[in-house]
């Protein structure tokens, strides 16, 4: 409960702080910004299109591997707590688990998914 309150307080404070920065020099920001000033930075030229696009992510296969790997990492947190208590058994079990998953990484490496496709 205190955790939740602390987190909410911190977020509220951060939002207030950022809003206060904006409000500080509010005099100028109430005027609508003219179009030439809104043009995105390209070093003085005018873009033809919006920048938002079906962006070509060059590493998308890596993200899929990453999600699977991270899912696995979530098992390791409870494991870490009981590691000393359980001793070698825990080490062996997690070792096996990690070796299984390393196969996935090695396979991805072999398929070249860590390159900028």
């Amino acid at each position: 409960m205190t955790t939740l309150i602390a987190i909410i307080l911190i977020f509220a404070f951060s939002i207030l702080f950022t809003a206060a920065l904006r409000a500080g020099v509010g005099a100028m920001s109430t005027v609508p910004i003219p179009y030439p000033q809104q043009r995105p930075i390209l070093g003085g030229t005018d873009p033809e299109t919006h920048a938002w696009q079906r962006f070509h992510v060059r590493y998308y296969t890596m993200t899929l591997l990453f999600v699977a790997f991270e899912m696995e990492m979530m098992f390791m947190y409870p494991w870490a707590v009981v590691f000393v208590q359980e001793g070698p058994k825990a080490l062996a079990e997690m070792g096996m688990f990690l070796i299984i998953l390393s196969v996935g990484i090695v396979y991805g490496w072999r398929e070249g998914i860590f390159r900028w496709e």
Partner: protein
Amino acid sequence: MGMNWLAKIAGLAEVPVFVAIGEGAPSDTAISLCTNPALRSVETPRAAAILLVVGTIPDALLPQLHRLHDQLPHPRATVLWHSGNRLSEATTVGGTEDIGASLKDVHRSLLAGNFDTEPDILPDVPPNEWRGIGTHGQGGKGMMGGTPYGRPMAMTAADLRDGLELDAYTADFGPFLPMFPPGLALTLTLQGDVIQSVAVVHPPFENHENRGWVLLNLLGLPALAERMLRVSNDSDTTLRRLIHLSGARAAIPKSLGRTYDGSDVRARFDQMTGISEHAMNAHVHQTGLDDLLIGLEWHEAMLVLNSFDTAPLRTICANTSDPEPDEKMEGGMDHGAHAGHMS
């Protein structure tokens, strides 16, 4: 009263300057600006209070200068230095004056309100009329069509590397980007961050400055870049050792940006930063920018662009085959649509 207080403190800061370099800028511009304690050269016009034009911007690039000018936040001012340009309301500083002190004065008077902020040069009109067009009044049509909020959306094209057909973003980049050699403006088509095609809009200006410091900056070493500018002679062993320890050489991919004579970015980097004494004769007679840049990721492409001195880079730009004539030959069908939608 509160404003005055803030303005007073702000006046003590280093003046944030965005530098636009033109033709005939002194070759030690970067050195004199960076060693001046009163000012700080920033990466984007959004962070600048003063637009400093060094040298003369040719007429062909004046529209770009005007757009750049209008992108600065208020309060802003323009200062011309060693420049033959005429801009309304701009302050001209003589070549012999202390640029730092002059800029500081301008900045202080801007903040105090003694000096009016410069209005836009360009008219306040959207790139395309959009207000009230379409059912939602956002200027769009259907899913992808029209000009929502003033611009059309990018359309798909095949990719060089993996053949996925996602959106290709085409735009002119430069000439006033800090990571571009001064004066260089390119039309680039990007898919993601990989360059698909390149055409030269404007070649870089003649200039004899060493671009080694820019390379260091692009490698994430701005402090070393400044140090390189500060030491006039090459005998700073600390600098060389620091560059060596930073792993900058290893960070540049091998055989990146290789020209036909065999030198790559790494070799040119060694020469520019004085690591290698071996003088290279840059033979770039057959190399064009399209050979060098197409298929590169953005960061690599910027390293390649800045690894050349101005003279070879101008040759390379001249060698670049322009895709425009091909286009005219290939697709003479729908030019009405082309012009109508793209301008």
